[in-house]
């Protein structure tokens, strides 16, 4: 909605092209209040204002961590000194990605009654889901403090990789959700496809095992290279791990540059696609 002089709303005057991500961010700024309300609503529903609610939100990542820890102790001879930390961080980072993508995919459809009654930038639904997951993971990260203390890990300069990794994961999940949410309005089985895709990627991504189990000599180098090109989450989860362990990333620079630029470009294209199609897509709701 372009605002001309004297409060003229030039509705639908133009659909942004290359400026799409910037239009989105300015919408985000203008509707920040709404975003806050949406996020705090989700938090209230989740936590019911209680500490027990917080405990419940940690139950799944902790239970999964223990399960995978035991499995690995039995099945693997890999010597990862920080295994519980590796698994827990992987699972938390993965849930940020998976939940932003899956809830973003259905967000237009689930909010159809609101969308048909009042106009506001529809990407707000996706940003609010993403913001909620970012807060959720920030709260969950407190549980790793005892682990860090146990391993005597002090924060190093690497801790900067944490916000960078989280933002890149959020951007990646959002860019995919920009496509899937629009497609979901046209074909209601899109969400099943996303669910299956997320489930498969969970195993193909170093979520409950460290990256070097894939790239560390088990497969030929050129395949390891290809793997890093194709799976940006492998890079981002490893970033978040090394933010806490202080270990070197162990990812070649050319892979790093490719993965980050691919994510930025995908976000750009996704936001263009979303902004140019959402007004037409909501007719399907």
């Amino acid at each position, binding site marked *: 909605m372009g605002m001309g002089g004297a*409060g003229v*709303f030039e509705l639908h005057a133009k659909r942004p092209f290359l400026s799409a991500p910037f239009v989105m961010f300015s919408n985000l700024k203008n509707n920040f209040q709404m975003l806050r309300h949406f996020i705090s609503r989700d938090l209230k529903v989740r936590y019911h204002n209680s500490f027990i609610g917080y405990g419940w939100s940690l139950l799944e990542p902790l239970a999964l961590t223990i399960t995978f820890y035991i499995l690995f102790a039995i099945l693997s001879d890999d010597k990862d000194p920080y295994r519980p930390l590796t698994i827990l961080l992987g699972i938390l980072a993965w849930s940020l990605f998976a939940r932003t993508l899956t809830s973003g995919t259905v967000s237009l459809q689930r909010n159809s009654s609101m*969308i048909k009654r009042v106009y506001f930038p529809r990407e707000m639904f996706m940003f609010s889901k993403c913001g909620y997951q970012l807060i959720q993971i920030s709260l969950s990260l407190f549980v790793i403090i005892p682990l860090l203390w146990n391993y005597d890990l002090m924060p190093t300069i690497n801790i900067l990789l944490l916000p960078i990794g989280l933002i890149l994961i959020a951007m990646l999940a959002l860019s995919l959700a920009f496509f899937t949410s629009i497609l979901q309005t046209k074909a209601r089985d899109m969400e099943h496809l996303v669910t299956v895709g997320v489930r498969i990627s969970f195993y193909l991504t170093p979520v409950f095992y460290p990256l070097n189990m894939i790239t560390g000599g088990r497969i030929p180098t050129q395949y390891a290279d290809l793997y890093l090109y194709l799976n940006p989450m492998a890079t981002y989860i490893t970033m978040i791990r090394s933010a806490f362990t202080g270990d070197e990333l162990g990812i070649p620079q050319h892979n790093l540059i490719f993965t980050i630029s691919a994510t930025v470009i995908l976000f750009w294209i996704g936001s263009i696609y979303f902004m140019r199609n959402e007004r037409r897509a909501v007719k399907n709701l």
Partner: protein
Amino acid sequence: MTKDIAISLKDISLLYPKNNKGIGSIRELITGRMKKQDSRMFTALSEINLEISKGSVVGIIGPNGSGKSTLLRVIAGIYAPDTGAIQVQGRPTLLVSVGTGFQQDLTGRENIYLTGSIYGFSMKEMKAIEQDIIEFSGIGDFINDPMRTYSAGMRARLGFSIISNLKPEILLLDEVMSVGDYEFRKKSRARIDEMVQSDATVVIVSHSKTILTSICDKVYALSSGKIVTSGDVDEAFEFYESDKE
């Protein structure tokens, strides 16, 4: 756009997907691409030209499926027209059903702020009218209870109360609604009359001749997505009566 025009529509056309509720699968999405576009879409609005001056009250009448509600949604910015240009001076608010975006787990008060933010009003603006909203709704102390404890009537009263206190510059009414008990219906009718008589520009969609003749400056008849009369009230009703048969 001249200063005294609030809403201007030029050659607005809008296609709508056929049987949109049964929208299907990824398979159809792929095979559907091969079909001609016109077999999947119907024309909901066709070459609408309309200028509505500031402060006027305009009625739209037409049989079901003639595109009345779609026209309001286009003005509200909800649907984008496929062709044509639309300009709206001021913030349009569509009043179609009350309680949009209400959250069961939030209190009535929190829902006031939430609804306000959805309609583009800041926390400060909402705080200023909060007391009026609560008073008009007659909810009383329940305002601090979660909305899941409300009756349907209470929810509707609060919803109406919020929207009517937002004092929109451009009010789009889809059927004049009646909510709550007899007392509240009287109150809300009076409030709608009040809004209609204020400086706000109002577009009303209705089937009711009595309502439209009593409050509208102009009435247009809509038939199969086209505006078919010039704005004259009697002409519109004449057409509507003959169109029904």
